[in-house]
């Protein structure tokens, strides 16, 4: 602790490039991540539209695109998954919010390694460029799914994709490198640069979740980086790590991929939860219920996430005797999440709830995530997964986990911290319209897809007219597609709100929501090195509605009065 305070206060660099492009200021870098993730979200959303249009109205030209063939379709599905997970969810939740908030919330002047921070952003930027370029090379983009199972991804003869797949591997590897650097920075910063008095158990939960996510990522990605290298060597140098004809094993790739892939879900989910957990107490005017229980549950979920990967492989051909043990670990992981969710509900209970836009998104995210959580039990049981694996049930399930954390959580974060990011308030009416459109349309997309999955509708299917058993499912795809269009159009109020508020929004005061955490104890937006004077932390982050206090919030920097002692004693 305290290293940040010893460092000299730097002047803000003068030139435009040093200030806004190759900046080492975590706040500028956070905005760059935000911009990049929102730009990539356009790609992710557009590919979702293409997929959905094709499934509702096969044989038609897609407005704004044209006809689509089965090989394009696979490529588009691959790009959608890759973009959404690696280039939207991670930059948004870790890159933008983690970068912006960790230093501010712990009372530091910047990240521990500002130049590494700069490098991690530009590595991600390069990765995004590589992925985008890969969509236009001869042979087309990667088309083996975001999971890139070998040997489909291993030899161009199976897909006809040459450069596209190589560039995909390169893009993903660069993305991993970027978040490795970012994760090291998150961790070092949190451990070393906390303001005086900011003990680990006074950290806001978002910080806990960001660093747990960073650690989970650091520990899980190594094997997959090796795997990506092996895949590239198979493709380029004629090795055969994953090729059975050369003695390799396709299942090795699945193990390496999912050893990373499952923890990755938590890398995305935890920060999303973290955002909801910052928003809920402020708008319920109530302390987090079970702060420490949340932290221990987070850590437990992080640890358990390393021993569940083979639940993606129940019917893969691995030894069936392994399945039950992975079912047990998988279903066990629902326990820490149950604690977190129940504690969130308990935080809301008997609060004084203001349904402002950030709160709507946080509660909406919690309510929708619950569907993702409970449907996980169906696919976590090896027995029922025999039927459900690889169907639209899985697609609906993981969208119900990833979408709430990425977008409900992410939007809650934007509406909540926008004043801190940009110094202005967003428009509430547009925000509420945005929320209700998103909530209704999102559910209208994916509930029908659950039903399709229960009929056995396989995923990654270009067109299903050759199957009789899928005829009754077609209306579900129609509803899902119409709702997708609604969902995408429903983002317009957000885009308008975001842009309009930048120039016309009401000027924000330092602490518009009357919140306690340190980022609100400085100007909106914060000055170059965040705090005029280093904050001294005196108390827990969620002291709302403390009995006997003069107002219903007590900032973390406020010295401990005798009041609290009596409140605790009663």
């Amino acid at each position, binding site marked *: 602790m305290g290293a940040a305070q010893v460092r000299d206060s730097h002047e803000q660099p003068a030139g435009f490039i040093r200030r806004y492009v190759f900046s080492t200021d975590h706040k500028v870098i956070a905005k760059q991540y935000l911009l990049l993730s929102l730009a990539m979200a356009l790609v992710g959303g557009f590919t979702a539209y293409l997929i959905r249009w094709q499934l509702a109205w096969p044989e038609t030209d897609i407005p704004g695109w044209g006809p689509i063939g089965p090989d394009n379709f696979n490529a588009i599905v691959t790009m959608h998954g890759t973009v959404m997970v690696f280039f939207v969810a991670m930059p948004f939740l870790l890159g933008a919010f983690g970068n912006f908030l960790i230093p501010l919330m712990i009372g530091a002047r910047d990240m521990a390694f500002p130049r590494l921070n700069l490098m991690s952003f530009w590595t991600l930027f390069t990765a995004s460029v590589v992925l985008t370029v890969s969509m236009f090379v001869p042979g087309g983009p990667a088309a083996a799914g975001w999971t890139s199972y070998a040997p489909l991804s291993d030899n161009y003869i199976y897909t006809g994709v040459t450069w596209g797949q190589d560039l995909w591997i390169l893009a993903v590897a660069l993305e991993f490198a970027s978040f490795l650097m970012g994760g090291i920075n998150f961790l070092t910063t949190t451990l070393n640069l906390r303001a005086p008095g900011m003990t680990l158990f006074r950290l806001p939960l978002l910080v806990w979740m960001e660093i747990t996510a960073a650690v989970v990522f650091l520990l899980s990605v190594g094997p997959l980086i090796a795997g990506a290298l092996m895949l590239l060597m198979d493709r380029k140098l004629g090795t055969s790590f994953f090729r059975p004809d050369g003695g390799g094993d396709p299942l090795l790739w699945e193990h390496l991929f999912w050893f990373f892939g499952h923890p990755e879900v938590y890398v995305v989910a935890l920060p999303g939860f973290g955002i909801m957990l910052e928003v809920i107490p402020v708008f319920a005017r109530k302390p987090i*219920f079970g702060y420490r229980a949340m932290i221990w549950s987070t850590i437990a979920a992080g640890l358990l996430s390393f021993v569940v990967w083979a639940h993606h492989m129940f019917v893969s051909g691995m030894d069936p005797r392994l399945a039950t043990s992975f079912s047990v670990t998988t279903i066990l992981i629902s*326990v820490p999440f149950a604690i977190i969710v129940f504690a969130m509900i308990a935080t809301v209970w008997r609060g004084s709830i203001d349904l402002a836009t950030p709160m709507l998104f946080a509660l909406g995210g919690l309510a929708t995530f619950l569907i993702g959580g409970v449907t996980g039990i169906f696919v976590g049981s090896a027995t029922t997964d025999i039927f459900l694996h690889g169907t639209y049930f899985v697609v609906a399930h993981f969208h119900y986990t990833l979408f709430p954390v990425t977008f409900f959580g992410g939007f809650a974060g934007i509406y909540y911290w926008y004043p801190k990011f940009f110094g202005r308030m967003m428009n509430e009416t547009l925000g509420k319209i945005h929320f209700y459109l998103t909530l209704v349309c999102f559910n209208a997309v994916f509930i029908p897809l659950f039903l399709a999955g229960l009929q056995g509708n396989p995923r990654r299917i270009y067109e299903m007219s050759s199957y009789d058993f899928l005829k009754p499912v077609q209306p579900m795809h129609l509803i899902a597609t119409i709702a997708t269009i609604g969902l995408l159009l429903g983002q317009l109020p957000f885009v308008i709100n975001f842009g309009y508020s930048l120039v016309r929004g009401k000027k924000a005061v330092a602490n518009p929501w009357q919140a306690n955490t340190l980022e609100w104890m400085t100007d909106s937006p914060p000055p170059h090195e965040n705090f005029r004077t280093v904050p001294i932390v005196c108390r827990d982050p969620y002291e709302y509605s403390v009995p006997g206090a003069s107002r*219903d919030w007590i900032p973390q920097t406020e010295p401990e009065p005798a009041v609290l002692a009596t409140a605790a004693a009663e």
Partner: protein
Amino acid sequence: MARRVRLWRTCLNNRGTAATVLDHLLPINVSTFGGDIDHVFWLIFWIVGLWFIAAECILLYSVMRHRRKAGAVAAFWRGDTPRQLAWVLIPAFVVLCLDLGIDYAGASVWERVKGNAPASNIVVRVTAKQFNWIFTYPGPDNKFGTADDVTSENDMHVPVGKVVHLELESPDVIHSFFVPNLRLKQDVVPGRTIRAWFEATKAGTYEIACSELCGFGHYSMQGNVIVQNQAAYAAWVRETWPRSTAASSSASSKN
């Protein structure tokens, strides 16, 4: 249409519309183990369904009930004493117990479906390749790799009420053999022979879909399991299989 009686239906005395809707949630099951899988499904369905509804209702109620009003003050609960935390930990403990119950119920069914198969003398080799299904029967000599092997493309004939063994192989990429009505799914991995089995309970044609992305033709890897009664199956064998072990290599099927 006579359907298998399911666990949940025995709980519901009369078949209301809700029950009819639920009845159509899953496709008709026609395998001996499919009913067991469905039982586990409905067990999970009711357990998590009730928890889910309870959680959503409490959340919704508390948001409605505790909307901000002038003068009202939020409760000050940190949930850090064992007594308060019990409100969270006890439900979580119940979740844990129910979870373990689900795993316990599932484990024996898994063992039945994916563990050692019951004995049988009907073996079909399933070759999944880009982009169709080849079914190979050992022919009258009951040995694969001999001249009297019989192959059929995309249609697999099997008798009803008999255990059928499958040997799944792929020469190219991973595919997945999925027959929704049989509740049977098994990936087919190049480089290995993976065994699976089923016993169909009802004659009919049931579609096979590939459920692992295998290339641009993945969507079109449609096949059929043609479950026939003993007589029809015997007739099919008579028509398409070579007559004796003294095989004539030209006699394979022309499907």
